[in-house]
């Protein structure tokens, strides 16, 4: 079978966020493979290691520099990578349309997508991609197994969790708890440099959502700090609870 694992390049959380004009400026950001996507790459590798004959393709939409994140996926063990390059910052639905063409071309059986993208704070990409492809989707997946043409998974619902079964091809969105992503070893990082990474321009797709401005969210807090007698601290908390009506 063919497994496509969709990845994104995101700034690591330690970066300081500023806005200049309408652009987000991330000072000192290290750009990394999104942690949520690591679960997808790892799960693809585990499916193969469980005895399923699978080719694993890492696929991304983004600027040229996304190659680095794709190399990380290759170093974890993906077989080859494809980058649909664009310097525009397409929204999740537009990104889904860009990805869908490549996924159809690959004739993928299973597509793994990060459950939430750290830069967008969005959970839309996986479901939007499934709908664009006309495939079923399992969201917030915590375990999965392939049984012939059927995908079995457990996912988190609003309350508790559910077991899902669906026919392949399908899209799965990942989350923490699905697995423990491996770290690329040095020999694998070296090997990854020689693996195929094909870059081509992303297909044109017009967005239906336009960002008109950005500001840094700053909520003013009181910051009443109390040191010393724990009783004093306790009383300050009780006054706040009373004020809040809680």
């Amino acid at each position, binding site marked *: 079978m063919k497994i496509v694992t969709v990845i994104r390049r995101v700034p690591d959380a330690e970066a300081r966020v500023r806005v200049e004009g309408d652009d987000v400026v991330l000072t000192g950001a290290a750009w990394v493979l999104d942690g949520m996507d690591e679960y997808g790459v790892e799960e693809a590798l585990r499916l193969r290691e469980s005895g399923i004959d699978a080719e694993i393709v890492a696929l991304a939409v983004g600027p040229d520099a996304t190659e680095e994140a794709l190399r990380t996926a290759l170093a974890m063990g993906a077989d080859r990578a494809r980058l649909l390059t664009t310097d525009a910052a397409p929204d999740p639905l537009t990104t889904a349309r860009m990805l869908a063409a490549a996924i159809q071309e690959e004739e993928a059986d299973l597509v793994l997508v990060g459950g939430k993208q750290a830069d967008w704070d969005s959970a*839309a990409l996986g479901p939007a991609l499934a709908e664009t492809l006309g495939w079923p989707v399992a969201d917030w997946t915590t375990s999965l197994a392939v049984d012939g043409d059927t995908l079995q998974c457990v996912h988190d*619902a609003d309350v508790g969790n559910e077991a899902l079964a669906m026919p392949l091809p399908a899209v799965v969105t990942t989350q923490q708890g699905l697995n423990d992503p491996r770290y690329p070893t040095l020999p694998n990082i070296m090997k990854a440099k020689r693996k195929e990474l094909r870059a081509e321009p992303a297909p044109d797709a017009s967005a239906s*959502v336009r960002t008109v401005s950005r500001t840094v969210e700053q909520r003013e807090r009181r910051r009443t700090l109390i040191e010393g007698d724990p009783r004093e*601290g306790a009383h*300050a908390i009780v006054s*706040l609870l009373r004020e809040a009506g809680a």
Partner: protein
Amino acid sequence: MSGAERGPVLVWVDVVGTEPTRGALQAIDAARRLAAAAGTHVHGVAAGEDAQVAARYLPTVHRIDALPDGHDARVRAWHASLDGTGATMFVVAGTRTALAVAPRVAVRAGGAYLEEAVTLTVEDGQVVAERLTQLQRVTERLVAEATSAVVTVKVGAFAEAEPAEELGSVEVLDVVADERDRRVTVRPHEGGSGAAVALEEADVVVAGGRGLGSAEAFDTLVIPLAERLGGAVGATRAVVDAEWRPYGEQIGQTGKTVAPTVYLALGISGAVQHMSGMNRSRWIVAINADADAPIFQQCDVGVINDVHAVVPELMKALEER
């Protein structure tokens, strides 16, 4: 586009027991604001008997019966409600289910998707929303440049709507599920959390971090305090990784997002990934032994002390009040 061409604003209403969920009440408030800005009115959409409850809040409610389980049928129903009423705006609370269903409805309708809106209005006939990105640190203003707009509303961002003066009317909306809507089979699975109060719905959240020192400290400090305040228990990832608490209680980037009236953080350092799940709480209280803990930069009341000393005093002070 004028209000009339836009049709009504639709709002999906989930009900638990005999009341809309808090999320649904917030979505109704958001829909009312959007309708006021667009010069139109709000219609509810609800499943089966839930429609009667929704009619206490809304003048017209479209009732959808016999929905099969699963997301596919919901996509069908929500999309059909837009189609069947001439509406172009659909609003729903940003629950896990809605965050997975709503973008699909937008794709199917060829419309725009506005995810986890914190404000909502109409300018020059287009729906405009603000949402948070970059781990909830940046506010983006987005314009929906499509005929239809599907909106999920961020938990805690809007007020809870009050009932209307008059009971609304309920109309049945026929939705025919097809085979594709049954391709995913859904079964309940063992091991769901048995929390007394759902985390996202709670008015007070008492969350514990690694600073508590042990799983037992949750039983002796966090849980009794949460019970005393009628709140829910939350945890950091460090605590979930240590298996002191289940993943269902994790708050943050890779866990749940909450915005209660009061968030009490006990022994939590305040990492960006944690803060992104709770920084929209109305009030934040922190108890941490380290005066330099980042959480003290973003709290309303901070107690620089050992949790083991403060929480018993807090319980005592609560008994006295």
